């Protein structure tokens, strides 16, 4: 706003400025930076179009049934998106269910309870760890979480809940260690620092006056959190959560290592599944150019794109509302 106002106050009367030829003046500059902006727009447009175009063969061959079919069989050349989409959404929901309470608790502690020195150190550490590349989380999951799940968690659940009628099916399966729950767990660890950092920022920009008023009326810390901070920063918090969800949906490396990569659907949390991203990462190198399989993978990419862009658009919208 201020910058545009400044840009319009050009020193017009100077003759040299008027004489400047097109190719070295402000118009060229504007054209150049405008082209850069256009390039950004075009790259997303190109992404959407190439995915849609590349996947059109698969959508044409299988119709809308592609989305609801559970088959992935390169031998008979039949493909469907249901299993990877199920795995993607399932692992993301698990990650959110585990990660969001942790992130909320940690952000609450960091902003309202911890001594400033400790909060500074832990907060910085959490922010730094949000920058750790996802393949590191994948390796950690592969070498630490998977054995732990196979040796401790899965036998425990099988032993104690394996015969309980309602949840028997959730814990069914051989103790491989790989599976939907492991994938969700690693994703949760990956997105929690990120969500914590966003929530911490949202809590931190709250006007101190509001909090102090509540404390002055005798509210406890939790009441201030529950009745003042959370209502005030609800949109930002949800935005952070949805942003984390967007990350989990499209995550490739952290998941591919630990989810087991089996194209199945079922109730069990411990059975190997796959996700759109992991399936694409594993099968893409083995697909011939122009084949129906390649097109099916691109169609999967298109579905993933729809899922994650919708999520991101919602997140941006929620986060923007607060800023204005």
């Amino acid at each position, binding site marked *: 706003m201020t910058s545009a106002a*400044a840009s319009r106050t050009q020193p017009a009367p100077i003759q040299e400025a008027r004489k400047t030829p097109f190719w070295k003046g402000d118009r060229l500059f504007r054209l150049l930076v405008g082209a850069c902006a256009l390039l950004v727009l075009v790259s997303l447009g190109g992404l959407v179009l190439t995915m849609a175009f590349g996947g059109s063969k698969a959508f044409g061959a299988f119709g809308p049934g592609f989305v609801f079919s559970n088959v992935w069989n390169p031998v008979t050349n039949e493909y469907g998106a249901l299993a990877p989409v199920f795995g993607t959404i399932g692992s993301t929901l698990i990650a959110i269910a585990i990660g969001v309470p942790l992130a909320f608790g940690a952000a609450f502690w960091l902003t309202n309870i911890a001594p400033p020195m400790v909060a500074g150190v832990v907060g910085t550490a959490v922010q730094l760890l949000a920058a*750790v590349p996802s393949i*590191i989380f994948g390796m950690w999951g592969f070498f630490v979480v998977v054995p732990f799940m196979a040796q401790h968690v899965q036998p425990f659940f099988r032993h104690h809940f394996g015969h309980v009628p309602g949840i028997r099916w959730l814990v069914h399966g051989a103790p491989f260690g790989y599976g939907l729950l492991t994938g969700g767990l690693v994703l949760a660890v990956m997105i929690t620092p990120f969500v914590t950092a966003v929530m911490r920022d949202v809590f931190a920009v709250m006007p101190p006056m509001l909090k102090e008023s509540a404390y002055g009326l005798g509210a406890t810390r939790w009441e201030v959190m529950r009745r003042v901070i959370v209502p005030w920063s609800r949109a930002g918090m949800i935005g952070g959560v949805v942003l984390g969800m967007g990350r989990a949906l499209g995550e490739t490396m952290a998941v591919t290592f630990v989810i087991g990569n089996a194209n199945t659907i079922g109730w069990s949390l411990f059975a190997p599944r796959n996700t759109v991203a992991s399936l694409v990462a594993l099968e893409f190198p083995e697909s011939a150019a122009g084949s129906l399989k390649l097109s099916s993978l691109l169609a999967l990419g298109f579905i993933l794109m729809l899922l994650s862009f919708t999520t991101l658009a919602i997140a941006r919208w929620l986060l923007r509302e607060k800023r204005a």
Partner: protein
Amino acid sequence: MSKSMGQGWRKDPRATQRLLMDRLATGMSLTATAILVLALASILWTLLWNGLAGLSLAALLHPMGPPGSNGGLANAILGSLIQTAVALLIATPVGLGCGIYLSEFGTGSKFATAVRFVSDVLLSAPSILIGLFVYLVLVAPFGHFSGFAGSVALAILAVPIIVRTTEDMLRLVPVAMREAGSALGAAHWRVVLFLCLRSAAPGVLTGILLALARVSGETAPLLFTSLGNQNWSFSLDKPMASLPIAIYQYAGASYDDWVRLAWTGALLVTLGVLGINIIVRFGFRSKQS
């Protein structure tokens, strides 16, 4: 704590309930933080423990080789450096240009709003989709994988970060400074490039460094673009090795020395990424204040 509270606080059942609720929430939030910190400490500990064990001169100087051949990661390290450097060479001008457009010309126009939104979406788009896109545009038509395609994929990931920081930083430049430049008769582009951009330089550089950190650990966009290479590869026209891809290939292998190299590679990548972040966080903060 309870000593400091008055008598009425303890006897009133409603107050006791509130106190208990507060204690419970405090305890839970402390537990949540502890779990988070423990999980992250476990990651760092595993990384250091396994990574340092495999860190040797051979790992840094030898190229990748078959299991048992005393191979290293040198070609992958070099490939990563080349590809991220090229990616930044592409992304920096585009990102700066787009950021300048948004802050200088993009107030109120629908085009700028669209660009800003798209850049935000790209900022957190699944990186594997970027890989697929670049495969279709730069690999499939030419019939072979190339380091350049990998660089372009990384550049697409880097641009939105640079755009965001450039725009934010340029908006912080005081109007008085622009007016002073214009009053001296400088053209708008001179004011922007030599006054505004210069005074915003630390912030803009922060954005570029953060983009570098983000991009140097990315694996998924490289899978289908630069593919990876077991040998030395200097040509951007050929498949090129990179550290994340090498980690991906070696981590799942059943050879001990490959797994050890994967950990070493993971340690190197993490140290690089965290190093850049720490420099940005502490190096620039002290200078700005």
